[in-house]
């Protein structure tokens, strides 16, 4: 099967600096529909910042983001979510006091009508919509394997389950492109295998287009078709897993040319 070639997400040379720190420079990306792209790089390379720029948390200094032929640069995050870009967070940001089911139901929010008046009066359509939302939320919980814990508070889930719940919540927005920020972080090897299967399943069942940040090279090299490598905000390589692995610039970025570079990386990790 040949992959379809039309680009669903196109990023044209976006840049972002924080004060003097150039967190992302001239970042370009073209994601064909149904593709799975890896985004890797050492800590502090600017990967999460790329996600924040795409989803509207930060506004790019220059450059543009086009989703499904529609310019979304500089739009507010909720509009971007409505346009079809959804994400998970590296530092998990679930709605802790709410139930697992409610977390996913909230994801459906963006596709729902949710009038205040309708909720108060409970019109027939409102009731139908609530049922439809619950049905799709339960289906998604089934996909990520959390159906049994639907009524627990999200903050009480173990770490790995929380990460999968974030994925379910992001899927509930029915995104065109799904951004996953280190979904395997903190998972044990068993969970990682399950996660890999889950991602494959998402591609098959939901035709998901995925941009994946991941530190676990086993996962990335195994499932991604192409990989982009960032270092100090710059794109230093792009290609198939094999090409990237043999790229000298990438090896240097990861292993460090010498001890000095290593320690400066450690320093740039700083903050919190």
């Amino acid at each position: 099967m040949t992959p379809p070639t039309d680009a669903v997400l196109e990023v044209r040379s976006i840049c972002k600096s924080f004060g003097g720190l150039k967190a992302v420079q001239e970042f370009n990306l073209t994601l064909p529909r149904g593709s799975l792209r890896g985004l890797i790089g050492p800590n502090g390379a600017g990967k999460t910042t790329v996600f924040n720029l795409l989803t509207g948390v930060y506004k790019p200094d220059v450059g543009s983001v086009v989703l499904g032929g529609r310019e979304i640069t500089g739009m507010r995050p909720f509009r971007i979510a409505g346009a079809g870009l959804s994400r998970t967070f590296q530092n998990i940001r679930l709605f802790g006091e709410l139930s697992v089911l409610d977390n996913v139901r909230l994801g459906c929010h963006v596709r729902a009508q949710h009038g205040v008046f309708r909720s108060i009066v409970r019109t027939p359509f409102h009731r139908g919509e609530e049922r439809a939302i619950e049905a799709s939320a339960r289906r998604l919980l089934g996909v990520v394997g959390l159906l049994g814990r639907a009524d627990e508070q999200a903050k009480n889930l173990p770490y790995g389950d929380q990460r999968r719940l974030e994925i379910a919540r992001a899927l509930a927005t029915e995104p065109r492109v799904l951004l996953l920020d280190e979904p395997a972080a903190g998972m044990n090897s068993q969970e990682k295998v399950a996660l890999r299967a889950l991602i494959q399943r998402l591609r098959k069942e939901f035709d998901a287009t995925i941009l994946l940040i991941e530190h676990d090279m086993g996962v990335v090299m195994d499932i991604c078709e192409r990989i982009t490598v960032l270092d100090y905000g710059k794109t230093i390589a792009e290609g198939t897993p094999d090409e990237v692995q043999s790229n000298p610039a990438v090896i240097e970025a990861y292993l460090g040319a010498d001890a000095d570079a290593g320690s400066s990386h450690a320093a740039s990790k700083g903050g919190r």
Partner: protein
Amino acid sequence: MEKFLQTLIDALAVGSLYALIALGYTMVYGILKFINFAHSDVFVLGAWTSFLVAVAAGWGDPQASAGAGREWVAWVLWAATIAAAVIAAFEYAAWKRRHPTDAFSLNRTRLAGSLVLVAAWGWAALGLAKMAGVVKAWGDNGLFSGLLILLCAMATCGLVGFVLERLAYKPLRKAPRLNVLITAIGVSLLLQNLGQLQAMFGTRPQRMPTLLPTDAPLATIANVKIMPVDVIGAATAVALMFLLDFLVHRTKFGRSMRAVSFNPTTASLMGIPVDRVISVTFVIGASLAAAAGFLYGQKYPGLNQTAAAVWVLLGLKAFVAAVVGGIGNIRGAMLGGVLIGLLEFFGAAYVSAAMRDVYVFSLLIVVLLVRPSGILGRPMVEKV
């Protein structure tokens, strides 16, 4: 011209007091990132403490101010002293059992250390109050007594600030900011209503004895009398502010304060005693508020009961000053205080006196909408 000058003098005098109070809000916000709602009540406590001390020292009309003796203060101090001694003995024994050979210092006892500090501090404040009485008996013109009363009020409120922080805020160091804000509101309500108890200050307004002559202006410019209370009040405020500015920007302790304000976690990793810095910050803020309370009472001797809304409004204006100047920024608080004073007094004098609170709050809303970080503040962004 006359009106303008008079307004200017009042505005500067009161503005410098706003600045003093604003410093407390700003320092606490800078370090703990929450609005210490109870700060205005500490200011009120300062005013009332100085009233009690002044009356006990023999100032004012002896008939009008009955019931100024508060023996229970001494009882509480005795209780604290005895408790401190007993607990210290126990902690010493326990410590000796575990470390038979090491030298012992009070720093090693946790509860007793604080208690000893509190008791000694309380006795010192009481001593200052007694000294004010002695000085008055010698026949004093008010300046020296005023200084003693000021110090006593500052010491008392500093102590209260210390205890409040330890009991109410410290357990919430890691709690969400909203919870701390609610606690602060609770503490504020507690102080207001405790102050109204008969054993404290009662529910009736009182008249603060004025220590400085009210009929002999220092100078007269264009028919406007410049009164000693304005000059000395503003001078005291400015002196205290310079002292604080020196402390924060020029000393080692100030450096640790700024470090904690920047990032408490990192500061503690660098070996800065974060808890102690926070305590001292509260103490400084509270004693500055007490000074403002004393000076305010000298300028406007009618003291309202502690839960009166006017007090909260005064405190809020000071808070607005802190926000306008840029919260977390010490020089900003001073600037903001003077600005608020000018705005309020000129608005009241030239537009409408009834609306004086409206100007201040409107300014607050405008500043928050246009430049939420204030004049001298830096904007903050949340990392995702």
